[in-house]
């Protein structure tokens, strides 16, 4: 509620929208046969915070690579059928809060992706996305086959900060994008028939694909509340990013090792 008010206040004051997701030029077309086409220009910003003890000399190249991967995976929009949402009234250009309908949705979004480094926690806003680079992660997990596995990257769940261990990121350049897609609400895949997927997270992955369904899920997550489409522009809701980063990194069960002097 507060973030919504803040956003509306910012629009009224013509202040630039900020945050992990900023969308402009939003519009909808309804083909009258149960298909909505959504259009808009999205700017996705991922802030990278180097918390390593000895520094991360190759961080810039890893960030550039991650920016390219995220951009390429989001290109081309997405499609999702059987989406149950509020009924759209094309004449009035509003969603009816009292009627529901099932649509197919075409996401014709254009994406600009920024992956930028920040040096101070003061540069983090509540609705920013952040990728923290740490020395190591002690957390282990058990996969669906009952095997214990180490963690090279860790993300609590959608909208939460992502983390990667620097040395592991150097070994697997896709690690940053994988973790960021958790922030964008994609789950891990352990099915051995899907080793070609970017979200396959066991050691023997062989590919980097994002399926059309996954892209549809990401677009759906980015939009959040479908009613935003009628407002022309919006930025994502408050994620309490700094608070979440703090409790995530300080949770002893994850065994993060990082330079605590950089996190004050």
């Amino acid at each position, binding site marked *: 509620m507060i973030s*919504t008010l803040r956003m509306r206040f910012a629009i009224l004051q013509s202040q630039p929208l900020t945050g992990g997701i900023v969308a402009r030029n939003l519009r909808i077309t309804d083909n009258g046969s149960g298909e909505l086409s959504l259009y808009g220009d999205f700017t996705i910003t991922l802030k990278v915070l180097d918390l390593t003890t000895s520094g991360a000399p190759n961080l810039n190249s890893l960030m550039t690579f991650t920016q390219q991967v995220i951009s390429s995976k989001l290109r081309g929009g997405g499609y999702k059928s*059987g989406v149950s949402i509020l009924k759209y009234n094309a004449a009035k250009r509003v969603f009816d809060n009292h009627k529901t309908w099932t649509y197919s949705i075409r996401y014709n979004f254009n994406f600009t992706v920024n992956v930028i480094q920040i040096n101070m926690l003061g540069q983090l806003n509540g609705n920013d996305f952040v990728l923290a680079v740490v020395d190591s992660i002690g957390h282990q997990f058990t996969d669906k086959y009952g095997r214990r596995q180490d963690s090279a990257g860790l993300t609590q769940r959608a909208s939460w900060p992502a983390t990667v261990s620097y040395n592991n990121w150097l070994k697997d350049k896709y690690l940053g994008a994988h973790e960021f897609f958790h922030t964008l609400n994609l*789950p891990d895949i352990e099915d051995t028939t899907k080793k070609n997927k970017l979200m396959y997270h066991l050691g023997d992955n062989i590919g980097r694909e994002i399926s059309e369904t996954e892209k549809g899920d990401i677009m759906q997550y980015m939009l959040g509340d479908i009613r935003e489409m009628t407002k022309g522009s919006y930025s994502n809701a408050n994620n309490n990013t700094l608070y979440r980063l703090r409790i995530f990194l300080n949770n002893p069960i994850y065994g993060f090792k990082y330079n605590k002097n950089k996190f004050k």
Partner: protein
Amino acid sequence: MASNTIRISLNSILLLLVFACQNNSRNNKILSNQSIDTCQYYRYDAHQIVSNLGCQNCHLLLIPGDKDDRGWATFSDLVTMDSLKLIDFVFTKKHKGWYSKTGTFKTPRMDTLSECQIKSVIRYIKDQGRDIPMSNQ
């Protein structure tokens, strides 16, 4: 007289214990007929169900405490609900028949979920409030 009473009482207790501790073959038969629960939780599958149902289209992914202006339960609100209440809330009362075979969502996807799928969805929702991160090896 008193020692006889004590002796009889002790014998009675002993006899009772012997009978009580014997395995009952009838109960064993019942146990052996029970089926093994083969329902396994896999986060990815549960996520797909939640995604296909479109839960988060209406139950917005807001931080705990933030409210939907329509008064609808946010996804964080669902996470804090008791599992039994959640089953009742999600699958019966609160969706006004939208997901029934004659409802506006037409495809009766929620009605056709198996018990195992329902359990998985409930666990998926509850897990959103627990410290269970997503890792990459």
